[in-house]
């Protein structure tokens, strides 16, 4: 506990811009789970998800210069973390490491699922085409709307709709038929 625990978000962010470490700790406690969840679903690797949380928090003082406070901070943070995760994904794909990652995914140390059906959905998601998987995760799992998803991925709205439709068809085939 420290003096910043009860601070409103805006004051907390100002403290972070000024480099206050206690403020970082409070912000971590508030939002780290959200970021880690984004990392696990998009990157599918605990180490990568940890790196995502780490990098987003460390990049905050600089990135906050662009946060104008027009919407909730959590939404902005979620978008920033998602962009960062997508960047990591893109780099991995560029290196043609994605396939290797898929093969290794089962052996990595993602915490065991609490519900039996999680294995199914997780395995099914891994078998989706990357573009479809990204859209499904952003749109359905992370809850971004179609426009936001298109913006984050740098694709058109129509592309998002088509990829989502195809992703759902594929998942339905894998999970229910």
């Amino acid at each position, binding site marked *: 506990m420290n003096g910043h625990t009860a601070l409103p978000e805006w004051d907390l962010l100002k403290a972070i811009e000024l480099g206050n*470490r206690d403020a*970082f*700790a409070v912000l*971590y*406690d508030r939002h*780290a*789970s959200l970021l*880690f*969840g*984004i990392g*696990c*679903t998009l990157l599918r690797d*605990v180490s990568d998800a*940890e790196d995502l949380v*780490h*990098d*987003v928090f*460390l*990049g905050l003082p*600089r*990135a906050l*210069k*662009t946060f104008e406070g027009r919407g909730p901070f959590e939404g902005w943070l979620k978008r*920033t973390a998602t*962009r*960062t995760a*997508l*960047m*990591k994904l*893109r780099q991995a794909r*560029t*290196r043609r490491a994605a396939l290797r990652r898929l093969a290794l995914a089962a052996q990595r140390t993602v915490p065991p699922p*609490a*519900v039996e*059906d*999680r294995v*199914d*959905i*997780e395995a099914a*998601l891994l078998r989706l085409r990357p573009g479809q998987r990204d859209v*499904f*995760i952003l749109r*359905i*799992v*992370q809850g971004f709307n*179609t426009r936001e998803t*298109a913006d*984050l*991925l*740098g*694709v*058109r709205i129509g*592309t998002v*709709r088509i990829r*989502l439709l195809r992703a*759902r*068809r594929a*998942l*339905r085939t894998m*999970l229910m038929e």
Partner: protein
Amino acid sequence: MFFHPRDSRLDAYADRELSARSTRRVARHLRRCHRCRVRVAGTRDIGSQARKLTTRPLPPGLRARVLQSVASGVPVIVPVADPVVAALPWRKAVWVGVGALVLVAGIRVVGVRNLESETSLLEFAPAGVPEGGTVSITYHATARFGSARSLKLRARYRRAGDPQYGYDIPQVDAATLTRTSGRTYRGNVALPDRVVYAAFAVEDDAGVVIDSRGVQGWEWLAQADGRPTSDALLQRVNEAFGRDPGAALDAAIELTGAFPERVEGWNTRTTLERAALGPDVSSRLRDGHVQRVRAFHAELQDSTIPASEIGAMYSYAKIWDVADIAEWWRRRVLRDTQGSALDFQLRLVDIYTARRDDPAKAAQETERLWDDIGSASGDALALAFGLALQLKQPQASLRWARRLLAAEPHRRLAVAEQLGTFSTLRDTVRTWLDEEAARLARPDDSRRPLYVATRRQDRAREDLRSGALALKGRLLLDAGDTVAAGAYLDSAAALGWDVANFTAAAQLRLARGDSVGAARLYALVAVDPGAGGAEIEGLGRRLVGARQWEAEKVRALAQMVERTGREAEPRAVFDLVRVTDRDGMPLDLRARLAGPVTVVAFWVPLCKTCLTDLRDTYDLVTGFGPAARIAIVSQRALTEEDWNLLASDGLDGVAVVDAFGDATRAFSAWGAPATFVVDGRAVIQYRLTSADKLARQILTLVDRKGQRTPVVAP
């Protein structure tokens, strides 16, 4: 509904994305259709299953790791802008802009070893000094200054209202720093009145060794209430404007963050966003800016605000095409800021538009405008001068030229060249050129940038002086005074290496019947690998015979190597310079610099016309065969369209992206894209100032390495 809704419609229903009317229609169908109800339930079930994946326990130890990194100050950049959709639907979506720059780059920015400021530090005390105060300086030097007992602190001071770029803002000796212990030096600086921003650099007495904090300078900003003033922050933006758009944008973002109520800050930021982020990204910011323009308008239209803010409101609205508000503020500029630079410019354009068909009348009216105003910024005066030239009014052009040069003397040569087109003004211009050549014969430290050593400045001064003498020679030639013209052109030819001067001087000698003198000058042209050719060869042989011609060329080659060698400014590239390839994969540019001479050409993708120059450079460099090669470094992320553009000129294979900013830092590209010639040991030898120097600079480096002199096709 007789038919089942399409899958996409059922999905949209499941996602609650349909309009109220469509929702009712699908719901009606679902009440009757078991198959579609199962379908929608399945869709929602898949979603809810997938959402459970986001609830993971945080790994133990992550919190400590993050906080430890925060404490150690590990710098990380995360993307803050979305990628942009490609312009053409069949193209893959591409990443552009600042966000994309970082995306392509990767997130972690490793501190780059900086040759100039590896561990040096300059501290101000007290930190928060108001305008006009005295500051104590403590400088912790690196080994570069040896055991010097004192060092010189140079400064560039800016006051509120000083312009972007500011070529005519002088550099001054601010203080002498005296060694107090080890490598620590101290001194005091009395800041001149009204200074709000200062950049400092430290150098030895001779101005040979300079520590300029990697060409950024150590910055001092006037403070009030414990933070930099808005004027100080604005001047920081203006100082960075011409040399580093990225740094200027960072400073503008800081300014608007600290003083969101200052329109001038937003107006400047907009300009930089357009320059630094490119039109695609900046257009995505349009809505926010337009909203702000309207909010400012509502708030400020009935307020008394400074002239600079009135002008900024007009520019800000104009740049985002908010026509009604721009027109409102235009009228206010004309009404409330009479005599301001912007008022002057607007009135000038009005006169020009209305009197285009009556140049004499237009000239009279602009003169009356000057009587009313009496002073204006350099930009406004340059506009008036340009309009007078277009109206072909010699006397008006001369008057505006004098006013312009009083405000911005650095434009002397360019203005003289333009005025020289009026035959009636040639005497005046010739006198100016004599004065300019005399002025340039003497060192003027106030015009030496903080980051430039005396030797380099001397060469720049010689180049300018050679230009002044050559221009006067050409004007004398036009006037028919061939003897005097020959003397001036000879002087110009002796100062620098300018093929145009050699040729003009040779022609004059030829006209006087001096074949040997002409051949000697033509030999200088012949050995220049960018200029020689069969025609010159034939001419030289006819003038003095084949044997003497070959002897003249040997002598000329030695001169070329000697003069080109004097132009070199050797500086090692950093140990690691990370760039990325087309796929975003990091590469070490430095590793690629080993071996042949490499021309490193920085390119901003916005500059499509620069591609022609790049292609010419590419052709020239490849003419050297394996002895030289070219690397094109893009200063920002490249879109698919950019790559295609490069590919259409066959340049995509040699292009890389400076996604980490390492290359820009390593080469210290001061200002807009620059080209550097690097020898095979990764030592930067030349920063190219003129394309026609490139071939001989490469040739000189190839020669130095003892390789065979390459034959370059004319």
